[in-house]
């Protein structure tokens, strides 16, 4: 058995046939293409969701879109579409090389790039639109409300689902151990356990993401407090559910891996194809579910009028001053992951969750290298 790529690559390593390639193309063209086009439409309309008196969450003066606003809007949209300039040549190169399994890595890279680019583009566009905001809009509200309810991960946890994920993952692990014990020599430890190890690690990543989502700060203005709470909680729940869907997917893959190894050569290719087809169908179902939930979330979000919240930055002491290490800073007394300084936002390296995230990413990289080179 050969395998060229960690994780997913391992999964299909040795099964590279024409039909599998076709499934890759379908996966990329149909599922990713659909999600990508829908995402572009969604981001295209996003600045005007609240009507022509708004640009994202900035209330703008009448006639904004016929003057400077048109330029800001166009530049935002061009920046959003500019990622096709990376994706199209990269996808073309992959198709020409015939290494279609690399499409999965391209999708992963594009997911990260799209989100980073979106956050950056929105932030930049809003900053520029602030100059044309309606008078008084830049003034933050004076009173904010904060919940005295403790936000703990267990309050956002479905224990039946957790039990199911744990049971499926444990079954997969036991099956892999049994396969290792009974498989004829020579047995390759990395082939049998490399992929499950990576999948378990990704499960941990999703859990860390859930902790971050739960911990994400959520002050609300006293005005329209209920609408703002509903909006924050709906958003939080959406992203937590998305993490859970990812974890279910990983758990099922952990179970599928030893099943695939145990299958005979004649059924192995069929199993891979079945898995691929299942992934495509499941991907479509998740994409549709995600769109429905996004629309629900949008309805709730639009009810809450965006306001500027006051910064109690002075209380943060040193962090309110420009950080020498921008965009990084080290503020042990500040509890937030992102700090606002005179030069913009900085990542607080003293935060426990930031440190955990950094350690996690380093571990993920090490694991990739280990599996790739089978150290």
């Amino acid at each position, binding site marked *: 058995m050969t395998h060229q790529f960690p994780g997913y690559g391992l999964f299909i390593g040795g099964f590279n046939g024409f039909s599998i390639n076709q499934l890759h193309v379908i996966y990329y063209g149909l599922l990713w293409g659909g999600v990508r086009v829908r995402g572009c439409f969604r981001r295209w309309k996003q600045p005007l969701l609240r009507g022509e008196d708004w640009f994202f969450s900035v209330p703008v003066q009448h006639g904004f879109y016929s003057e400077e606003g048109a330029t800001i809007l166009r530049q935002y949209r061009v920046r959003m579409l500019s990622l096709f300039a990376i994706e199209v040549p990269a996808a073309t190169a992959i198709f020409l090389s015939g290494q279609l399994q690399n499409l999965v890595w391209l999708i992963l890279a594009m997911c990260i790039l799209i989100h980073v680019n979106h956050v950056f583009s929105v932030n930049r566009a809003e900053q520029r639109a602030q100059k044309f905001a309606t008078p008084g809009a830049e003034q933050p509200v004076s*009173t*904010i409300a*904060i919940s*005295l309810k403790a936000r703990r991960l267990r309050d956002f946890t479905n224990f039946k689902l957790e039990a199911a994920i744990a049971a499926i993952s444990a079954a997969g692990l036991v099956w892999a151990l049994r396969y290792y014990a009974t498989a004829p020599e020579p047995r390759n430890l990395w082939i049998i356990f490399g992929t499950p190890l990576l999948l378990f690690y990704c499960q941990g990543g999703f859990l860390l993401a859930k902790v971050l989502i739960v911990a994400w700060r959520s*002050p609300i203005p006293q005005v329209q407090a209920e609408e703002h709470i509903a909006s924050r909680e709906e958003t939080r729940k959406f992203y937590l559910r998305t993490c859970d869907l990812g974890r279910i997917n990983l758990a099922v893959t952990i179970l599928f891996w030893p099943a695939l190894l145990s299958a005979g050569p004649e059924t192995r290719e069929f199993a891979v194809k079945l898995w691929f087809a299942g992934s495509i169908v499941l991907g479509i179902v998740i994409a549709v579910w995600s769109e429905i939930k996004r629309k629900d979330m949008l309805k709730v979000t639009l009810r809450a009028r965006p306001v500027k919240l006051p910064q*109690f930055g002075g209380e*943060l002491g040193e962090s309110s001053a420009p950080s020498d290490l921008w965009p990084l800073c080290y503020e042990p007394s500040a*509890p937030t992951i992102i700090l606002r300084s005179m030069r913009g936002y900085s990542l607080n390296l003293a935060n426990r969750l930031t440190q955990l995230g950094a350690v996690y990413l380093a571990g993920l990289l090490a694991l990739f290298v280990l599996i790739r080179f089978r150290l």
Partner: protein
Amino acid sequence: MFLTINAGDARPIYQQVADGIKELIASGKLAEGTPLPPVRQLAADLGVNLNTIATAYRELQRDGLLAVKHGSGSVVASSTTAERSLDELLRPLRTALTQMVLAGLPQKKILQLVINELQTVMQGRK
């Protein structure tokens, strides 16, 4: 259950937090045994230094209103503060009344304001 913080208030943030929690306890909205969020969560929500919230919690603990249970966070310990002398309790009231008199409010109006405030503070309390 919400705590409101006003950016324009002359009191420091820790005092607003402590006073706000005291008001909620006095009104019965925060009953004995109710858990309070960890210092880290409250500080992160407000975007303030951890010490700001820790100071507020320490003040509540000193007044006997808050108990810190190791491993399970802080809970409302009592709906009455630790015993304090009448003179000590009257001092802030006297200061507030002085301010009202100096502001030129008539006695009847001051009395009405005090009764209204007392009713607001004690609403929901059994």
